[in-house]
């Protein structure tokens, strides 16, 4: 094997990591399943942090208050609502999706790993370090406080106009500038992680499929990952450019968004939302994919309208690029632009509606089992529909002009991202937990979790429609009594703490079930797709023999469709790119070679936050930190390139 990977059989300078247990085995792992688990644990931790921030917001707004008697002051409040959004979107939801992609994708398509296992590890470490970088701002200047879309020119206030060190500015302005740098550089780093994993997943899906796994036999989840990855691939560079421009404005005195010098703040809005709207689909499509796997399993019917599901997903992927300016109806783009984007926004509801009706069609006449994952999946269908409908109301420009920047928008986006994404991801957690751990989650606790979360969710976010229509603005740290908002705000706060209780039940369930849960077996749900053909948890190499796929819902056909049960054929697919050729031929036996662990992905990732800190300083410190970070990145990349993927 070594000969194929490295013609001269040379070893890299440093010994390869060999640990198979303990912390170093996790730091150096390139196994997609372990990386998936790390993604999950990290993202769920950030989900808790973002949730605590939400609880602080709700506790503060529970009652009207004067300037005194507040839990947090306006400055901290701004930081908290900004970080709530950034955390939930970039540090919780996207990586939770990535956790599912990582763990399940190779299993679902019958591969042994992703196309680039070390790039996959790199993505994870960049994500982790990017998240820690973003949160390290709390020890420095304070956290970003400009809202998640961080509109210019507010974001460039306090910019350093002379290009000298930030330390020479007035303290307040300097700290604001530093916060904006944490925002732009932190998101930039996180973007690199997503970009790398997007390219990785695209290649994996297109190139690593088991024999017979045609594109139209792919599980729908896989299709949604493919579409999401393409959206990431094309959306992230746009926000990347915007973030660089912001960084140059704030730190080096360029004039992109400064209207006083002829710059155009609206340009930032375009850049942001040209990324921001595809981002919405990046957040929701993975959850759609999960639900499209869960509902057929528990309705015991094939997915209704598979092709319609695929093509509506693709249609969403394309149309998602033509609707961004509906976030900017209040920016004054003019009636022609507003009308065009209003129309495209109404149109994009059509493929989304197709999906809703396909799920209903799958449920129709099925033998439905209301297990916990099924409850969450049906919860998504119902809650997302509400969010989708309030979304369509936003396409009507006069209506948006009325509702923009009110709690009505907050209600809409939480119905879509919480009622949609989070419910879908919880469905996936309950559904695939037996595959990951080999044990079932407690169903009784799961149902308690669902109902508490369902009720709490609606208590929290449904009244926001009402107070929003009554004119309560977003992002206010306090409000006065007598506006008619008091009652519903108290209800919302009670609802949010109900959600917190529900999530606590989930955590308890997660911990106890992973230790003492009922043993699951390979296929506890009587499911339909390939990941359930292997053991729970799957072996390192996923499949002893790469399956030969003869049908959509392969496993179902093997179990229930007589002739599909011939033994799987040994075929040369999977593994990593370095040993795709039949390993058994070389080793004359079950010697399946998997890629070896490596230090370098984590090392290369470590250089990024160091270089980013460099931008915030000035003079010699800047040169030193940028140089050090750059050197670490280069050292990591060179070690990576020179080291064979497997020895």
């Amino acid at each position, binding site marked *: 094997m070594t000969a194929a990977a*490295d*013609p*001269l059989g*040379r070893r890299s300078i440093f010994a390869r990591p060999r640990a198979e247990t303990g912390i170093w085995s996790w730091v150096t792992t390139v196994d997609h399943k372990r990386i998936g688990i790390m993604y999950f644990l990290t993202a769920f931790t950030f989900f808790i942090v973002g949730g605590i921030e939400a609880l602080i917001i709700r506790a503060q707004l529970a009652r009207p208050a004067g300037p005194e008697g507040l839990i947090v002051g306006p400055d901290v409040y701004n930081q908290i609502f900004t970080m709530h959004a950034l955390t939930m979107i970039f540090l919780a939801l996207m990586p939770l999706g990535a956790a599912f992609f990582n763990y399940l994708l190779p299993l679902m398509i019958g591969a042994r790993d992703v*196309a*680039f296992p070390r790039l996959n590890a790199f993505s994870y470490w960049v994500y982790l370090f990017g998240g820690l970088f973003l949160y390290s701002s709390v020890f420095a200047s304070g956290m970003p406080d400009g809202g998640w879309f961080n509109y210019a020119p507010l974001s460039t206030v306090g910019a350093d*106009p002379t*290009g000298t060190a930030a330390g020479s500015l007035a303290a307040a302005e300097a700290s604001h500038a530093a916060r904006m740098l944490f925002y732009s550089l932190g998101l930039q780093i996180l973007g690199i992680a997503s*970009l790398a994993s*997007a*390219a*990785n997943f*695209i*290649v994996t899906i*297109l*190139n*690593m*499929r088991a*024999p*017979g*796994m*045609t594109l139209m036999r792919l599980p729908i989840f896989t299709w949604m990952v493919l579409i999401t990855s393409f959206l990431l*691939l*094309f*959306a*992230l*560079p*746009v926000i*990347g*450019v*915007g973030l*660089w*421009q912001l960084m*140059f*404005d704030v730190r*080096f*005195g*360029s*004039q*992109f968004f400064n209207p006083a*010098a*002829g*710059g*155009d703040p609206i*340009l930032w809005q375009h*850049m942001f939302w*040209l990324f921001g709207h595809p981002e919405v689909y990046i957040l929701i499509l993975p959850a759609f994919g999960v639900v499209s796997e869960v509902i057929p399993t528990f309705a015991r019917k094939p997915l209704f309208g598979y092709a319609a599901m695929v093509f509506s997903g693709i249609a969403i992927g394309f149309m998602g690029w033509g609707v961004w300016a509906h976030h900017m109806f209040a920016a004054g783009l003019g009636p022609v632009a507003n009308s065009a984007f209003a129309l495209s926004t109404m149109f994009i509801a059509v493929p989304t509606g197709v999906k809703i009706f396909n799920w209903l069609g799958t449920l129709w006449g099925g033998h439905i089992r209301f297990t916990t994952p099924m409850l969450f999946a049906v919860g998504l269908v119902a809650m997302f529909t509400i969010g989708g409908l309030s979304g369509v109301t936003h396409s009507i420009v006069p209506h948006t002009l009325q509702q923009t920047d009110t709690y009505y928008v907050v209600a809409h986006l939480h119905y879509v991202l919480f009622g949609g994404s989070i419910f879908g991801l919880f469905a996936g957690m309950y559904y695939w937990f037996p595959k990951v751990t080999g044990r079932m989650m407690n169903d009784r606790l799961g149902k308690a979790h669902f109902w508490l979360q369902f009720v709490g969710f609606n208590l929290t976010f449904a009244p926001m429609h009402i107070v929003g229509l009554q004119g309560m603005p977003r992002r206010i740290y306090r409000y006065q009594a007598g506006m008619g908002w008091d009652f519903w705000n108290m209800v919302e706060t009670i609802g949010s703490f109900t959600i917190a209780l529900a999530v606590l039940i989930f955590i308890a369930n997660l911990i106890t079930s992973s230790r003492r849960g009922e043993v699951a077996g390979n296929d506890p749900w009587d499911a339909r797709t390939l990941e359930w053909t292997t053991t729970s948890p799957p072996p390192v190499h996923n499949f002893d023999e790469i399956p030969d796929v003869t049908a959509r819902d392969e496993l179902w056909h093997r179990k229930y469709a007589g002739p599909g049960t011939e033994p799987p054929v040994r*075929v*040369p*697919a999977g*593994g990593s*790119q*370095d*040993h*795709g*050729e039949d390993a058994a031929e070389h080793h004359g036996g079950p010697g399946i070679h998997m890629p070896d662990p490596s230090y370098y992905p984590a090392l290369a990732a470590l250089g990024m936050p160091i270089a980013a800190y460099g931008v915030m300083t000035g003079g010699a410190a800047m040169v030193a930190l940028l140089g050090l970070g750059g050197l670490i990145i*280069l050292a990591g990349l*060179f070690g990576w*390139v*020179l080291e064979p993927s497997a020895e």
Partner: protein
Amino acid sequence: MTDTTAPHVESGGHPPTSLGVPNEKMAIWGFLGSECLFFGALISTYLIYLGRYNDGPGPEIFDIPFTSVSTFILLMSSLGMVLALSAIQHGQMRRFRTWTLATALMGSVFLAGQIFEFTEFYAHGMTLGASPWSSSFFVLTGFHGFHVAFGIMMLLGLWSGSMMGRIPQERSWVVENVGLYWHFVDIVWILIFTVVYLIPAE
């Protein structure tokens, strides 16, 4: 149907893949697609800010003959890249190393020209913060220069790898992938040169 996804065995030492395209090459194409959006956003910014010079200099500051020469050198480096790839595919290792170094050298000359140009502009009052136009010029061409620099590092990596004997003829696809990136960076420069230097403002 099975035919389309049965593993194809590519000549040239690639492991079999579902689509017959090597994984690395597909990833590079995906990355280049992403780069199109990156440079698209930068060029759009430049076009939006064309004409917003404040009191600073405008495009009359450009020395078009000078930049034409460095552009020509960068374009010729693409030819060098092609010859390097052809050499390694035919197993001519010395020729491969020569053309790889020549390509890197031509890229470096282009970069040196860009650095010279930037210092000239700065000396004439066209700084990063002079106007939205100058900001977008420096960030656009600067990011392109950064891409060229990264490409040079990869070329030097190829050269040193070849010296160590790590890139035999069967692994010529490594060179092909670096070549894809290099040609892309060249093509983007054609676009930038046309839009920024050749199309006159007003």
